[in-house]
């Protein structure tokens, strides 16, 4: 089955495949701080009505949209898979807190 891709980055995930750390995660890790910096600096300059501020701010918005576009399908897949196991893990946590982990 063919997977949906954008610029070589995958956009549809089966729940099990999404568990692994892949290049889509690394793209998010790199783009995310860049988006923060562009939004913060761009907005501060744009309040003074500077054109460079507007451009930087718009680049920040584009980076934010791109980031979510790439990572959201994977996060959705991870979340749906993990929710199935959460009850079992919570039970383990309660055993740890009650000093019965290995019973």
């Amino acid at each position, binding site marked *: 089955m063919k997977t949906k891709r954008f610029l070589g980055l995958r956009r549809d995930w089966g729940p099990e495949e999404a568990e692994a750390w892949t290049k889509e*995660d690394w793209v998010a890790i790199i783009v995310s701080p860049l*988006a923060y910096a562009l939004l913060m600096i761009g907005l501060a300059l744009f309040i003074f009505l500077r054109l460079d501020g507007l451009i930087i701010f718009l680049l920040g918005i584009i980076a934010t949209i791109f980031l979510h576009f790439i990572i*959201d399908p994977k996060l959705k897949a*991870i979340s749906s898979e993990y929710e199935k196991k959460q009850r079992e893990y919570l039970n383990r946590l309660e055993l740890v807190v009650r000093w019965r982990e290995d019973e």
Partner: protein
Amino acid sequence: MMIRFNFLDWVWLGLYLTLMTGCGLLFYRLGKRSEADFFLAGRGLPWWIPGISVYATHTATDTPMWVSGVIYKYGLRGLWYSFFSAWCAVAAFVSARIFRRSLAYSQAEWQSLRYGGLGGELLRGWMSGWGTFLNMFILGWVSMAMGKLCNYLFGWDNWVGLVIPSIIVAIYVLSAGYWGVVMADFQQGIIAFFIIVFASLWGVKAAGGPAGIITKLNTLGESWRLNPFHFSGFFGGDFPLAWFLTMIFIAVLGGFGMGTSIDWYAEAQRIQSSRTVRDAAYSIWWGTALTLTRNSFWAAAIIAFFVLYPHITDAQQYEMAWYRIAFEQIPAGLAGFLFAGIIAIHFSTISTHLNLGAVYLTRDIYHHYINPEASERRLVMAGRVATAILLLGSFIYGLMMEEITRWLIFALWIMGAGMWLPNILQVIWWRFNSWGYLSAWIANLGFSWLVVWILPAFGVIPELPDYLQFWALMVLTALVYIPVTLLTPPENKFHLAKYYAMTRPIGWWKPIKQEALRLGLIKEGGGR
């Protein structure tokens, strides 16, 4: 500066206090259902509720003072000081994901999932004690800032602003727990954001508008203040590039770890209260995005203040820049509205730390060590008692704050610098064990005293700038915990395999992945 409220101002304030405490109290029935409700709102929140709570919590009464200080001194370059919070940029997609999957209530509980045996328990005990102390300290610090602000604005004694607002907050934190905190934070965050935007833009307009401010900066020969990349050299001057690169390095790579920022612990509660891994990621990403853009509005207003009052040299004076321009320029009848916004940012911080400190006392100390078989009802009651202890402790800390602040800021610094890398290693490297992590805490304490105080005092080394202290402490501490880790046995593989199956950590975990596969805890390809 003294503010005189008119009738409309009091109406704003009264309406706001009613809305906020009422909102918190509405959730009384949900908060008392269980320990998970009292501390994590049942782990069922959509991302935008804890997201606004992240923003609201990190907007405290003293935050505009701190931002005013760095922007007035450094211009827009000062924004980079606030960029430390960008650790969330990476944490949202790495450590938040791992921590949310662990389901631990607190960072202390996570220690006993990541590390096993005696070492894990020692770390859990230490982290819960440290967490309780830290929250009490932050409560005292922020409450004292409110006391000083009320003294500045109204001439009230410091203790009034220290005690009264915290007691009002405690009403809804005691009754509804984290449900009350997060729901009050939601409306407090929205109100505070709009008031900050409005008051800041109004200040810019009052200082001559964008064009007028730029002209005045040029006339004063201070146009560099609008350049966020105006470095003073690589190592020298007041804003060296070496500091900037160190800050980016600490902030961004810190997102791979847990506890690399003091804000991690409050974020951990928001991450865990989110209903899914995706909601957890977005809650801290968007909460921090709001925090950083809020700083942009503050920065613009403080630059506006600078052109109105350009030659203040006393830090205590210019640290009030944002408050001054906001209160001095806001239209008549809106001072109460502005003060309501300040109350909002104060309440959100106080409520968070009251509830967060109570997590450690209840979940990690009472539930884990004292009464493991406690009923849900009893645990909620313990949560309320713990909240009351935090509240009383914060008053004592607040009143002592003048004397102890210098010592405690030092304590916070030393807890950060040498622990930065171990906090990352414990997430990304399976071989890093509890003895390595414990030895890092101890070594960091000793080396910090030496590098920051003792050796410079005796002239053995010069007094280093803070970014060089960071590098020195990172290297020196590693010389202790790396050998300790490698010379002591690794954690139990079965324990680690269970942790791996649960959290799927990033980094060097291959032997543990193989063990989890062998035990059938996971399937090849990721799933179970």
